[in-house]
Every structure is written in C-alpha cells, then in structure tokens.
C-alpha cells in the first residue's frame, strides 16, 4: 500500500469516526427530547384525570351541549394522547433504515443502527473486551476473544480498529 493510500485510508477512517460520533450525539439528543415530551404527556393526562374527578357537580349542572362538547373534547384528547405516545415511543425505539444497507453497499454490515437482536448474538462481555483492546491496539490481549470481536455484530468500532491494526501490521512488515 502506498503512503498516499494509507493517509487517504486514515482520513476516511477519521471521517467515519466523526460521522459515528455525530450520529451518536443526534440519537442522544433525540432520546432526551422525546423523553421530555413523554413526561409532558404524563403531566397532561394526570391533570385531565384530576380535573375530571372533580367535575362531578359541575357536569350535572351543565347544559346538554356542554356535556356533548366536554365528552367530545375528552375523547379527542385521549385519541391524541395515544397517537402522540405511540409516535414518541416509536421514535425512541431502536431501528435500522431499510435502505441504509444498500446505500452503504454492504461495506459496514450491521454497524450503523444495530438492533438489540444483533447485539445479543455476541457475548457482550467478550465483545466489549475485544472492542476496548482493539481501540487501544493490544491485539494479543484479545487473541482468545477474537471469535467474538470478529463476529458480524461485535461493535461499531471494531471494523475501523481491525483495519487500522491491519494497516499497522502491514506497514510494520514493509519496514
């Protein structure tokens, strides 16, 4: 591999690492905002229930049109509550866009947006140790764990770290 190829490769890795950090930050921000929205939903529901339990006497005194309007507004709020909670929960839950694998051309399978099923296939402890060792470059430490970190779902960083380690060993061999 030419030195220019190596530097280009490192630049690509750096770009990918930055993109991963960016996506991670966006996902965390999204999760926090959605959690706040769910809390607001809970506050609204609590306040409505609290008011409804105290409207006993008022409801009896009210005109028929007010009965109908009040019940309609309550039903509307309930439908909107269910829709809002459903959308917010689906925004929080992990997913993988269907077109993503095609866009990435199969180069990083199950790296972006891994689903829980993907992550559970590997031994979490083993893949974590392999991940840390790959990141700090101690490959001998992970030799007994190689089968975990070489599994297709090991972690976000391992493909990058593995290629970095391969580049390192090839450049050492060249020397």
């Amino acid at each position, binding site marked *: 591999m030419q030195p220019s190829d190596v530097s280009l490769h490192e630049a690509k890795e750096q770009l990918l690492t930055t993109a991963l950090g960016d996506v991670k930050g966006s996902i965390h921000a*999204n999760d926090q905002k959605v959690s706040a*929205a769910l809390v607001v939903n809970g506050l*609204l529901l609590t306040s409505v229930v609290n*008011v409804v339990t105290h409207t006993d006497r008022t409801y009896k005194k009210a005109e028929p049109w007010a009965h109908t309007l*009040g019940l309609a*507004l309550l039903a509307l709020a309930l439908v*909107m509550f269910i829709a809002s909670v*459903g*959308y*917010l929960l689906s925004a929080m839950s992990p997913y993988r866009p269907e077109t993503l694998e095609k866009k990435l051309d199969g180069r990083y399978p199950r790296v972006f947006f891994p689903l829980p099923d993907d992550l559970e296939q590997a031994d979490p402890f083993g893949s974590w140790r392999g991940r840390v060792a790959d990141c700090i470059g101690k490959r001998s430490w992970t030799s007994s764990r190689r089968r975990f970190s070489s599994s297709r779902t090991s972690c976000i960083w391992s493909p990058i770290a593995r290629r970095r380690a391969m580049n390192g060993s090839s450049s050492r061999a060249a020397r």
Partner: protein
Amino acid sequence: MESDCAKKGYEWLVLEGGAVILFFVLVASVAV
C-alpha cells in the same frame, strides 16, 4: 437530525395540549 416519528409525536402532543386546554376552558365556563 430528527426522526419523522418524533416530529409527528410532537405535533400530536401540541394538538392534545390544545384539546386539554379547551376542555379546561369549557369546564371553567360551565362552573362559573
């Protein structure tokens, strides 16, 4: 970057808040 689901969830939350406020106003006006 915000997902479409989150945007729809916020929109429905705003509508729900409107419906709840209308309900409160109705209850208050009937009670008064």
